[in-house]
């Protein structure tokens, strides 16, 4: 077990390696992206702020993530209720269809959406991009909300109704607070997935509408310097903050049951 412990530590180091090298590289004073960094400077962070296209792309990413998460939360919760509370013909097939985007090759979905949205003139629009992101994030909400809904003791809802609460009141004061952890987890995943989405967005964006990951990619096509390491560092800080928030409110393992 001891040797195995060292082995596991080595694998964990491998998993952490890309993150660990990014931060020092961002602080390099030299102009090549490399490791170890040369000197120490904050100028590459300065350079990020000096590129308005990064900020514009960040705004697009945040808006799309927020809009698609709101829609996915609403629709995903509705669907979760249907699947958890009802037995009906075709339920299994439909449920499979709802989670299919999780494993479906993103490139194929991107292509299919491009071909559908082009005649409708919806490519390179916030609407088109948001709708595609809803399909991608919906399965996450469905799974997290579905999982918590399974655990809701229906006697609590029945008690509320016996005590005279109508269906809406019961939902608002009993069911909703009980499924809140699932909603928070679903929203978090949805925000992360949408914010980080690349492949499908690649087909639906273009000049005038660019998400942050794609803007960074386009930057690297012409220049490979520590600027991208600086942006990455900002993204790492954001990730760590999110992880700590989830950890704090929910605990992680429960939501990653395979």
């Amino acid at each position, binding site marked *: 077990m001891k040797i195995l412990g060292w082995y596991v530590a080595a694998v964990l180091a491998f998993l952490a390696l890309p993150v660990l090298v990014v931060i020092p590289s961002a602080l390099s004073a030299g102009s090549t992206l490399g490791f170890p960094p040369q000197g120490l400077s904050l100028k590459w962070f300065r350079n990020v702020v000096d590129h308005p296209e990064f900020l514009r792309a960040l705004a697009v990413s945040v808006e799309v993530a927020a809009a698609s998460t709101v829609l996915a939360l609403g629709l995903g919760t*509705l669907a979760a209720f249907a699947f958890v509370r009802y037995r009906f013909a075709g339920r299994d097939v439909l449920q499979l269809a709802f989670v299919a985007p999780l494993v479906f090759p993103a490139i194929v979905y991107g292509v299919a959406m491009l071909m559908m949205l082009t005649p409708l003139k919806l490519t390179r629009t916030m609407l088109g991009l948001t709708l595609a992101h809803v399909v991608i994030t919906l399965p996450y909400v469905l799974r997290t909300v579905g999982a918590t809904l399974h655990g809701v003791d229906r006697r609590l809802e029945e008690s509320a109704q016996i005590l005279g609460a109508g269906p809406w009141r019961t939902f608002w004061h009993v069911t909703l607070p009980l499924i809140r952890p699932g909603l928070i987890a679903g929203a978090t995943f949805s925000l992360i997935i949408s914010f980080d989405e690349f492949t499908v967005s690649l087909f639906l964006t273009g000049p005038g509408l660019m998400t942050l990951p794609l803007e960074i990619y386009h930057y690297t096509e012409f220049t490979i310097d520590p600027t991208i390491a600086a942006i990455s560092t900002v993204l790492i800080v954001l990730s760590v903050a999110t992880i700590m928030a989830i950890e704090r409110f929910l605990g992680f393992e429960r939501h990653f049951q395979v």
Partner: protein
Amino acid sequence: MRAAVRGRARLLALLGLPAALLGLLFVYPLAHMAALSVRTVFPGAFQYTGAHYAKFVSDAYFLRVTQTSFALALTVTVLTAAVGYPVAYYFVRSRSRHKHWIFLGVISPLLVSIVVRTIGWTIVLGNEGLVNNALRMLGIVREPLALMNSFWSVTVGLVHVLLPFMILSIASVLGKIDTALEESAAILGAGPLRTFWRVTLPLSIQGVAAGSILVFCLTIGAYITPWWLGRGKVLLFSTTIYDQILAIVDWPFGSAAAMILVAATLAIILLYFALIGRVARR
């Protein structure tokens, strides 16, 4: 009777909107794409044809691309299984106090942005990167090795991001094995290696299989990591679809290629379930 009707109306109210969204934005686009793949041209007047499929399976370039994709998927699957199994075993069996951190470490690649991951690997594998600078400092090489933009840089990037899937799949099956079985084997005189080989490994093979199928399918469909870490030097199924659609703008042929990718993925999943079914019946 009234209750049944009311139940049906409620179900419709719950499922109507989500199902409509899924139909319009997931099922329809894919059906539309399938229809495009058998058209001679798009847009414009057309006839139905299977020529795009025929072209894909007869052209040497596309065959090579398919071969590379499958070779990559197989390499990544074998590597993640071999590297991940001991980690899953340790995670399930050890009484380490740090299990919580191990779990977070294992899933960390999934929590880090794709941008960070690929840039991180660029820094590690680049000409001025960690590996090359270390090798130069040790005097092993004088000129930097071209590690980036190769089959192996893509492999490293994919193994990194797919390891969590493999480890979690194996761990979930390993965790359900009754340790009494292993103890019995030990009592009956089997050494630890023999016990592992004859008892633990066969019992956990389903987790390896589930993880493998997941990793294989995700690699076959992977686009960004190969694109970013391969930079046009590693031509795969997915990069071909991109080229056909956005660079060459041959939508019917690109659709056919995409359909073949979907069919291949489905075939692998069905094969897996057939195999699992046979194992389960035994």
